[in-house]
């Protein structure tokens, strides 16, 4: 590789695509081709019994194009475009077989992809705004200026700060964090690793191999760009990445140790290995912050990426070979399947030794370099820690304390070694389960399959992939050093590389410690605490079976994701991780939806409501004038009294069915009164009435006259 090839395609999607082919990108393009080639060949047998194969192949190759696009991209705009295409086309893999658990896993996968994509896009907006460019060759320089507190970009234009941000630096960090969220989600970094253990067991095995081996690396690619290219020597950023890496590494391995499902173990192992890589990236930032050459960490991280891709390809295809024959993945069901199957055994062994970091296999080389990176930083702190702490500027004292604490990084080294040990332990668990144990009932049936469990094409592709691993590991100077030379420039590796003698005792020591821890863990934890004697006759022979020690009381919703933890350990860690997995995100989402949907509904009806309110109050129609009640008050009082009495009577004694419609007594009385009045009127108007009145008057007059006359006589 002499010089980089570049390609610009202006106008696509508005801003144009910018692709580039240089050392790192070349390596990863070649790896992509190898991986898709091998798993494509393997798919032929694996997919033979599925319907809708054309759908699988369409999205298989579409994802290939998009993934290569991500790795070739030379500006973040292009990266984002291909990244999104990749996320959506690979969705089809996860949902492919349409089982309920696949659909649920696919839902998680899509949610993580969409949310991650959108958050990343927001980061890109902010980044493009503050740096004025998204070109990978320029963001390092411009970010350096922003971090140094300068006010103008390299082209002389003033640095623009979006409203609401305290400074350009704050905006840059925000952008970095948002992008880290997006890329980290794809890479499977804690706490966004949730999709990995769900998606892998349900996807077809060749697809899992790619998901785990190379799609996660697209996320790592982004983390490299942010960390190594943009925040090249930023102490606090390096600390964040290194811590994330350590947590991811440890958590993933812990989950893998407790898992009893072949593909799930491999998926958790992927999470853990991504943690190793991330730690390396973080260390390279820290080393260059401390003013030291960071080549060790850089080469370690890069080689571990390459190794992990190749190893996971082999391991997942082995799992695929198991699954396409048995359609099962639980360790208890597949025990002993690998016996008398040398090709499968060889391939799996190569992968297991590689990932376990056993000397002479490829994983050992990269892990040694990563380990050396941490050791070098810790040694540096022991010598000049105090000086570094004094010189550190622009970082809060608490962070400086962690950054320069020798003990902390010594601890990190031990976390690293212990995780390496767990890696050995879980790979040993898988290997023993598959190739050493015997299945209590079906062993004979398994042995019969030995001749026809793989087609020649699958066999060749699997073994071919596996052979690469020891070749890389046994000839590290010839192969891996050269690969590292090609890639380190992309990571902005700096400083002088002192030749690492991989097989010197000082370097072997770390690997050997890990192996010892692994053996101890396997014997002390897995064989005793995570297994129980088989019931019945098999148990009497000392056979054991694998048990899932996950506390059953947390097994709600058929547990989509199992943070595996032993009951013996007080369930603190388990509860915390389980809570994060199960409840934290979904509860927040539920609350958010409940509150905002109520508020939005209220807003939705606001105008209508105001109109209705106005109609009822200010703009309401006047009531029609009430007609004057008929009858006098006495009729009303008596009538309603009678009515009420009648109602009470009816209720007490039951109503007699008289066949008539009951008329209200009020009405009745009023009618009576009206008739009475009417009669009176008639009488009043009649002539005889006049005559009668006249007569009465006459009589009264006569009476009066008599009274006056006789009255005088009588009382004199």
């Amino acid at each position, binding site marked *: 590789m002499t010089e980089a090839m570049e390609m610009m395609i*202006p*106008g*696509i*999607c*508005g*801003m144009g695509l910018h692709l580039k082919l240089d050392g790192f990108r070349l390596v990863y393009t070649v790896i992509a081709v190898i991986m898709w080639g091998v798993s494509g060949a393997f798919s032929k047998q694996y997919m033979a019994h599925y319907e809708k194969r054309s759908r699988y192949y369409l999205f298989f190759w579409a994802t290939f194009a998009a993934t290569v696009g991500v790795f070739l991209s030379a500006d973040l705009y292009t990266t*984002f*475009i291909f990244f*999104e*295409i990749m996320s*959506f086309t690979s969705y089809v893999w996860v*949902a492919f*077989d*349409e*089982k*309920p658990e696949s*659909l649920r896993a*696919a*839902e998680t996968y*899509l949610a993580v992809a*969409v*949310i991650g*994509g*959108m*958050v990343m*896009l*927001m980061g890109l*907006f*902010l980044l*493009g*705004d503050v740096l004025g460019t998204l070109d990978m060759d320029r963001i390092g320089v411009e970010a350096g200026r922003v971090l140094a507190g300068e006010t103008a970009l390299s082209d002389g234009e003033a640095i*623009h700060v*979006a*409203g*609401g*941000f305290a400074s350009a630096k704050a905006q840059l960090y925000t952008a970095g964090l948002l992008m880290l969220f997006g890329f980290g989600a794809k890479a499977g970094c804690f706490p966004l690793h949730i999709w990995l253990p769900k998606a892998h067991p349900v996807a077809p095995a060749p697809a899992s191999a790619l998901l785990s081996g190379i799609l996660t690396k697209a996320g790592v690619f982004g983390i490299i760009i942010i960390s190594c290219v943009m925040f090249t020597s930023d102490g606090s950023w390096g600390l964040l990445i290194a811590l994330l890496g350590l947590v991811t590494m440890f958590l993933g391995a812990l989950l893998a140790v407790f898992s009893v499902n072949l593909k799930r173990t491999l998926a958790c192992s992927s999470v853990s290995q991504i943690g190793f890589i991330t730690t390396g990236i973080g260390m390279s930032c820290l080393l260059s912050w401390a003013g030291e050459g960071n080549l060790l960490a850089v080469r370690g991280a890069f080689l571990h990426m390459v190794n992990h891709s190749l190893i996971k390809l082999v391991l997942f295809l082995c799992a695929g070979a198991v699954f396409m024959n048995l359609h099962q993945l639980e360790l208890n069901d597949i025990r002993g399947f690998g016996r008398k199957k040398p090709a499968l055994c060889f391939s799996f062994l190569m992968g297991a030794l590689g990932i376990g970091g056993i000397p002479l296999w490829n994983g050992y080389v990269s892990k040694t370099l990563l380990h050396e990176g941490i050791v070098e930083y810790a040694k540096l702190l022991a010598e000049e820690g105090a000086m570094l702490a004094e010189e550190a500027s622009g970082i809060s004292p608490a962070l400086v304390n962690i950054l320069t604490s020798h003990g902390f990084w010594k601890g990190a080294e031990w976390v690293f070694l212990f995780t390496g040990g767990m890696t050995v332990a879980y790979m040993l668990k898988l290997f023993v389960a598959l190739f050493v144990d015997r299945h209590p009932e079906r062993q004979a049936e398994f042995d019969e399959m030995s001749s026809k469990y793989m087609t020649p094409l699958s066999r060749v592709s699997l073994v071919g992939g596996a052979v690469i691993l020891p070749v890389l590991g046994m000839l590290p100077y010839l192969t891996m050093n050269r690969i590292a030379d090609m890639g380190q420039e992309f990571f902005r590796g700096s400083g002088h590389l002192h030749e690492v003698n991989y097989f010197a005792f000082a370097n072997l020591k770390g690997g050997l410690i890990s192996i010892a821890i692994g053996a101890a863990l396997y014997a002390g934890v897995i064989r005793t605490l995570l297994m129980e004697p088989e019931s019945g006759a098999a148990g009497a022979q000392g056979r054991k079976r694998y048990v899932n020690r996950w506390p059953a009381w947390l097994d709600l919703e058929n547990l989509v994701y199992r943070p595996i933890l032993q009951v013996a350990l007080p369930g603190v860690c388990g509860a915390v991780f389980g809570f994060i997995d199960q409840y934290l995100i979904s509860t927040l989402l539920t609350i958010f*939806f409940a509150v*905002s*949907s109520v508020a*939005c*509904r209220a*807003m*939705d009806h*606001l*105008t*209508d409501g105001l109109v209705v309110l106005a109609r009822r109050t200010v703009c309401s129609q006047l009531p029609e004038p009430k007609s004057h009640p008929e009858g006098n008050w006495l009729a009303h009082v008596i009538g309603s009294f009678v009515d009420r009495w009648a109602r009470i009577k009816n209720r007490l004694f039951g109503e007699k069915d008289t066949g008539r419609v009951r008329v209200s007594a009020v009405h009745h009385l009023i009618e009576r009164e009206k008739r009475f009045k009417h009669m009176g009127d008639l009488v009043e108007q009649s002539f005889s009435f006049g005559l009668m009145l006249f007569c009465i008057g006459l009589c009264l007059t006569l009476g009066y006259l008599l009274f006056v006359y006789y009255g005088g006589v009588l009382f004199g």
Partner: protein
Amino acid sequence: MEGNMMLLLPMVCPILAGIVVLAGKVFRKNRKYLISLSVAVLALELALTLQALVSGGSLTMLRLTEQITLGLHIDQVSRLFAALTAAVWLLVGIYSVAYMSHEEEEHRFFGYYLIVAGVLMGLNFSANLITLYVFYELMTLTSLPLVLHERSREAVRAGLKYLFYSVAGAFLALFGIFFLAGVSENLTFTAGGVLNDGALAGKEGLLLASAFCMIVGFGTKAGMFPLHGWLPTAHPVAPASASAVLSGLITKAGVLAIIRVVYYIIGPDRLRGTWVQNAWILLTLLTVFMGSMLAYKEPVLKKRLAYSTVSQVSYVLFGLSLLNQTAFVGALSHVVFHSVIKHALFLTAGAVIVTTGWTRVEQMRGLGQVMPKTLACYTIAALALVGIPPASGFVSKWYLASGALSSGAGVWSWVGPAVLLVSALLTAGYLLPLTIQGFFPGHDFKGEEIQKRKLTGKEPSWWMLAPIGILAAAALLFGCFPGNLISMLQSIAASVL
């Protein structure tokens, strides 16, 4: 009448044809005549519009007073809107040929459909605010029968609600027109504004108030909170073709009116940094979030799409409210993209209704077995609306967000993009389940109903499928190759800002 008479043709031709269709008995009886005439006129309309756009120029139709004239004029903005309208109108017309065969009183639908086309063209070509207002009101009235078409109780009520909201909005705007007429020489659209500084002295407060009234008033048609209520009511009851154009193009008439008022009459500089701009941004962002939130909660597909329109048209208004070149480009490109995408989505919803009678999303499980091609088109359009690259929605979102960040609108500059992305997330949440359940119904899905009714592989006819396919392809290709469109929009943006 002075000027280029060719400008009249795209307006008059469909209106006359529409009247003929409504009046002629032969079109009521013979479906073939009706369809051939309608499609022919729509095709002719497209040709006439393109011809008018190429020839350009202006035309004064009527002088009411010395100041008030009715006139047409072609500039870049009218080119954009008119070309979009004519092309999409033809596609939806072709779709309606098959769709409306399931409805009664086809001649009435096609008659008004043609008339609205002419009126919209007049709106797009308007040379001044008075003409715009006249055509705006005409558009409300002539599009009402499209909503009322089914004449059911709900349809009539929805129609009345549509009318009430539109008229209320137009009156708010009318207040502004009265005020603006007083402080300007004439109301001819001129990039950068026509207001007279001398006449305006001392009336700045009133100017801002009337600007706000006009934005809210014309925003009614664009579905901006608080006067968005007609959209979710009117869409589910109207025939799918009518919902499509209501949502995709008639809402854009509101956008056009706001562009004309803010950028061609008042002038963006007078609004920048004022309370009007802040209130406007706030309203658009509220609408964006509210629309997509409610769409997310909505089970009826057409209503869900209507809420989606509420949210998406406010993306456009958000871009306009920033008064910034890049955001302006984003806004206008979103006019085109949203229109194309939303037509594809509504036409799909209509195709589902015609073929299966399903209206609710949960009924549509396994839709991929019934109409895989249609659903694939739907998926492309949906991804474009979410803004997944390389489909078109992504491009407009990119311009909107980077415009917002560089607009200097204070804290809005990053709150805006954040709201847009949350809304994009919700958009994925309400559009993609149809695809997912359609193509991946799950193992336990037996599809009894599909088998019983013999729906398997029953795609809608080509009359319906072809327009959907063309629109979906456009939604994708506009995103991949937006170069010419963007450079045209940039020249518009440079002229007004």
